[in-house]
């Protein structure tokens, strides 16, 4: 690896990190606004126009808060947990295919995706997102608080039961695309059509599992306020709490990005249309790539809206209902989806 490549990596990392922070800030604002609208309220509108700077004010407040650690907590792990949560959330961003290559330096093409050609990208993302549960589990355990521990345990159990069928939901897409590389999967979708048309149950299953993986309502059992106070983050204050909170929103955007890439055609703006040929431009030219990035962002944020919308519409599952749904309903459905997709592909060949 030469110096230029290193510099590009550092720049990409900086951009992605800031992208994550800013988008998380506005996702929090969007969450509060959508919640307010659904409840016939207006939502935050005092800090800047339409409350644009509300999240930044909140983060500033969190920075000024006292950092309280319970006397009986295991300090090392208590401090480590938010770092794991946010670290995993950020590292997933390196794998998400944000758009095609933007610039060419020394014969290498660079875009916003740090690792555009990892040939097991899908697998790696699934692996990374399941590491994220360590942050929550350690946070719950090290706080030395019953409620936190319950939250951490629930998160672990939820992860085990949903990770499996999440992987299986992706298998259908991988069978159609014939690859685990995000670039090839997206190019395949741009050439034929979006996977959601072949795999609607796959998208539905993946969406349900993504809700469970990111601990969002109706699967937000790890933090279920009425029963567990705040769940795993009960004993966290100040920016440590802020990091756990940030990680949750970072994971939502990451899951939305993965769904957009796997099922909604990634950076392909319109299905069945070859935009580059229509406009008479090179598919790797800058306007087309920028348009693709815009399309990817639009799809991701539409899915983020779905996450928020679902949260303010549905009640929380009971713990046994969650397990029933995961093992008795979603797992067989995911297996059936894999079997049917595989059979159809085999028959078509």
């Amino acid at each position, binding site marked *: 690896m030469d110096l230029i490549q290193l510099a590009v990596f550092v720049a990409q990392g900086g951009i992605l990190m800031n992208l994550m922070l800013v988008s998380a800030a506005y996702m929090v604002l969007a969450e509060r606004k959508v919640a307010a609208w*659904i409840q016939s*309220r207006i939502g935050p509108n005092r800090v800047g126009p339409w409350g644009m700077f509300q999240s930044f004010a909140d983060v500033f407040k969190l920075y000024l808060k006292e950092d309280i650690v319970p006397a009986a907590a295991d300090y090392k792990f208590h401090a480590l947990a938010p770092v794991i949560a946010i670290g995993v959330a950020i590292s997933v961003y390196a794998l998400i295919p944000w758009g095609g290559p933007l610039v060419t330096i020394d014969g290498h093409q660079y875009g916003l995706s740090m690792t555009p050609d990892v040939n097991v990208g899908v697998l790696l993302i699934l692996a990374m997102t399941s590491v994220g549960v360590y942050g929550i589990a350690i946070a719950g355990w090290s706080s030395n608080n019953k409620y936190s521990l319950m939250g951490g345990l629930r998160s672990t159990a939820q992860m085990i039961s949903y990770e499996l069928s999440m992987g299986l939901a992706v298998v259908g897409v991988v069978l159609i695309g014939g690859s685990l590389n995000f670039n090839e999967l997206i190019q395949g979708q741009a050439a034929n059509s979006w996977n959601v048309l072949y795999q609607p149950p796959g998208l539905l299953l993946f969406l349900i599992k993504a809700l469970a993986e990111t601990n969002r309502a109706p699967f937000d059992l790890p933090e279920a306020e009425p029963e567990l106070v705040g769940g795993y983050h009960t004993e966290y204050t100040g920016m440590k709490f802020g990091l756990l909170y940030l990680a949750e929103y970072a994971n939502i955007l990451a899951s939305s990005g993965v769904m957009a890439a796997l099922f909604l055609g990634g950076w392909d703006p319109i299905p069945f249309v070859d935009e580059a040929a229509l406009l008479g431009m090179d598919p790797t030219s800058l306007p087309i790539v920028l348009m693709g990035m815009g399309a990817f962002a639009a799809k991701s944020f539409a899915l983020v809206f779905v996450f928020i919308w679902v949260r303010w519409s549905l009640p929380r599952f009971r713990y046994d209902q969650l397990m029933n749904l995961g093992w008795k309903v979603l797992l067989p459905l995911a297996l059936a989806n894999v079997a049917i997709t595989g059979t159809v592909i085999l028959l078509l060949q």
Partner: protein
Amino acid sequence: MANIKENTESQRLNFWERIYLPEIARGLGLTFRQMFRPKFTRQYPEERWEPEGSYRGRPVLVLEEDGERCVACGLCSRVCPALAIEVRAAETDQEKERYPEKFEINMLRCIYCGFCEEVCPEEAIVMSKDYELVFGSQEEGIFGKDKLLIPVAQLQERLEFLRQWR
């Protein structure tokens, strides 16, 4: 839970209701429509609420052109369940002979019951529309005559209400 045999979910619900998805879609549709319905929030410091005459805000003393109506009989102080009112009477050369030298309402104690207004023989203490009570210390919470006396012109709606309904 495992012992329930009658009226189970599978008996109560039909197939489509049992797989939840159509019902979830309906619920999502409801919340989506709700997002575009009118909002009920009042933007408080900019949009203020104007109460009706029947509203019981902070009690005030009525100020006529020739001075206050109060004759310092002390009935309001006597009836006040929260012991918030303190009156000290003094004599005057005017026709009504007595006036309150000191009239204090401790707004930290006042419970806005309106008994003082009800008991007043001169209609001199009435409940106003003022609901914005802010003070920085306990001492500031004790309102003297300077804050209590309000010109009669501003209290017409309340006096009208009392004439009609009392």
